[in-house]
């Protein structure tokens, strides 16, 4: 799936991150590959334990140490290998080139500094500037994320703001230096529905203005439907299906994706009985051999249990057209392509 396209910003290949727990080795990210193209939004969707957050943290090398280690693969930002950078070089990349918005705005902000100071801090890393100028830039950054009354809000402390407003401040800090890539890890999970809608709209408009590429980590197919151009579905450390959002929703090809989409009730239509996936996700330190979804899969075949299936292009994938590429790691597709 790696193309020599010049518009690929971030190329991830066979990324492997292991966690060393007392229970044993957990292959949290187990051979994940994807491309992020310029200006697009890529969704990485999965349940807890699927490895989606660990993938995000691996991209900026902020995995919990010493428990976790990136043991293999490659992450290239504009063609440059990130995994070989020194810690100092990495610090320069974070924020400048790749920024992150985390789930909980509360813990992303320091409670003892005003939001203005915290926004200014990101500019200060670019070199000392006079205080008045800093304030100006902080106000401009708040205006950009559509915080009402930024002149006064700039001297607020985090606890004086609502959750939605704090998450805007986190967003302001993240996009302040115009990063090439913005990783948003469940940024709206703690927000209310109407505030979530506002925030998603804000992210869209920032992306349109700045051309930032966004990786959206989420468990919610609704967010994928609303925000993303392409999507990668993760299960137990692996990408089981990826493709353009429209294609994934129209013809989900991996049984896990199919079941997941079918098991979410929609507010728009009345359903008598929801489908549900039986069983539990596998224990991370004791993954089944072969396809990890096999124990829960209604279409399981003998060879699914033998070895892990490779990616197969789906029928809906157009030939040679990169935009339409849609593939799934499922033996059911083997004969088709």
């Amino acid at each position, binding site marked *: 799936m790696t193309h020599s396209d010049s518009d690929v910003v971030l190329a991830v290949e066979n990324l492997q991150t292991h966690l060393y727990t007392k229970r044993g080795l*957990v292959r949290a990210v187990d051979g994940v590959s994807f491309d992020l193209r310029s200006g697009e939004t890529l969704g990485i969707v999965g349940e807890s*334990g699927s*490895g989606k957050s660990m993938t995000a943290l691996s991209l900026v090398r902020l995995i919990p140490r010493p428990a976790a280690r990136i043991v293999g693969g490659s992450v290239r930002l504009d063609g440059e290998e990130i995994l070989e950078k020194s810690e100092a070089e990495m610090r320069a990349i974070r924020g400048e080139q790749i920024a992150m918005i985390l789930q909980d705005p509360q813990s992303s902000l320091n409670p003892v500094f005003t939001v203005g100071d915290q926004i200014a801090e990101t500019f200060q890393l670019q070199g000392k500037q006079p205080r008045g100028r800093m304030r100006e830039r902080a106000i401009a950054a708040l205006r950009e994320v559509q915080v009402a009354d930024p002149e006064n809000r700039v001297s607020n402390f985090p606890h004086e703001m609502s959750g939605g407003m704090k998450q805007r401040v986190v967003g302001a800090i993240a996009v302040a230096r115009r990063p090439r890539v913005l990783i948003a890890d469940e940024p709206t999970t703690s927000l209310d529905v109407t505030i979530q809608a506002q925030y998603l709209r804000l992210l869209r408009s920032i992306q349109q203005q700045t051309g930032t590429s966004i990786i959206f980590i989420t468990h919610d197919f609704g967010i994928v439907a609303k925000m993303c151009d392409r999507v990668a579905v993760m299960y137990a450390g692996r990408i089981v299906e990826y493709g353009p959002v429209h294609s994934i929703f129209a013809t989900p090809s991996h049984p896990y994706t199919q079941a997941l989409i079918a098991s979410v009730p929609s507010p728009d239509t009345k359903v008598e009985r929801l489908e549900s996936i039986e069983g539990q996700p596998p224990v991370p330190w004791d993954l089944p051999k072969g396809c990890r979804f096999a124990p829960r899969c209604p279409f399981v075949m003998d060879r699914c249990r033998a070895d892990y299936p490779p990616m197969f292009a789906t029928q809906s994938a157009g030939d040679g057209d990169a935009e339409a590429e849609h593939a799934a790691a499922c033996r059911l597709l083997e004969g088709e392509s």
Partner: protein
Amino acid sequence: MPSSIRESGSSSRDVRPRGRSGRAPFVSIAILFFFLVLPSLVPDLMAPHDPLQGVFADRLRPPVFFGGTWEYPLGTDQLGRDILSRIIHGASVSLSVSLTGIFLGGLVGTTLGMIAGYFGGAVDAIIMRLVEVTMSIPLILLGLVLALSLGSSFQSIIIVIVLVLWAYYARQIRGEVLTIRERVFIDRARVAGASHLRILIRHIFPNIVNTLIVLATLQVAVVIIMEATLSFLGLGLPRPFPAWGLMVADGRTLIVRAWWIAFFPGLSIMLVVLALNVLGDWLRDRLDPKLRQL
């Protein structure tokens, strides 16, 4: 166990920093066993001499490597009593004083702390004012008053210890209960129809046991020092009890001529207290729900 059972859902929950609180502090446990537990259980088997009856002719003998003999490995005091035997017998004094004091202090403090934290309001205010008052009274003053009014005895030193300790338990436990009380499983218990007493005993108490164990371990050290301090000042156990603090006090006047009389009991106090603190810290990390391996 059925294979469908697995650990908590998120993988991040299972990540523990490695190398923290991993190995048990074996040295501390060994020190406590040989210096405190074993001598208090079988002092007569371990002590070579009578701790109370000295041999006048053998008084002020130095320890074995300082010109003394193996007869008295740690030397003798001014009455010719064997220091080693007195330290061995003193261990049981230290242990029984601290166990009794901590148990009673913990009982009073935990009960009041749980009541204060769970019910809140006026009850809480009264108990917490009492805690503050208790904590503001200097230990020495309290010891002095009680020793004068009750006379120095095992009972009066226990009373002093309980009066001091309960407040620490009450304050710590109340804080803990305040947060446990807000947890959803307490709501669930109320919805199930559990009485206040049942909630306190079945739901809250098991969740503070860890804190109690850690607190008690760290308090043993505090109590040994308290007992030593009080005895040193002559407010604790009456002579000729071989209490460690009392021995340090008695050796003080002879510190230049016969340093060993005060030195070895002092060293015992230090080693035991240090070992208890290390053990207590390890237990705290070990039992902390946030660090515990679920």
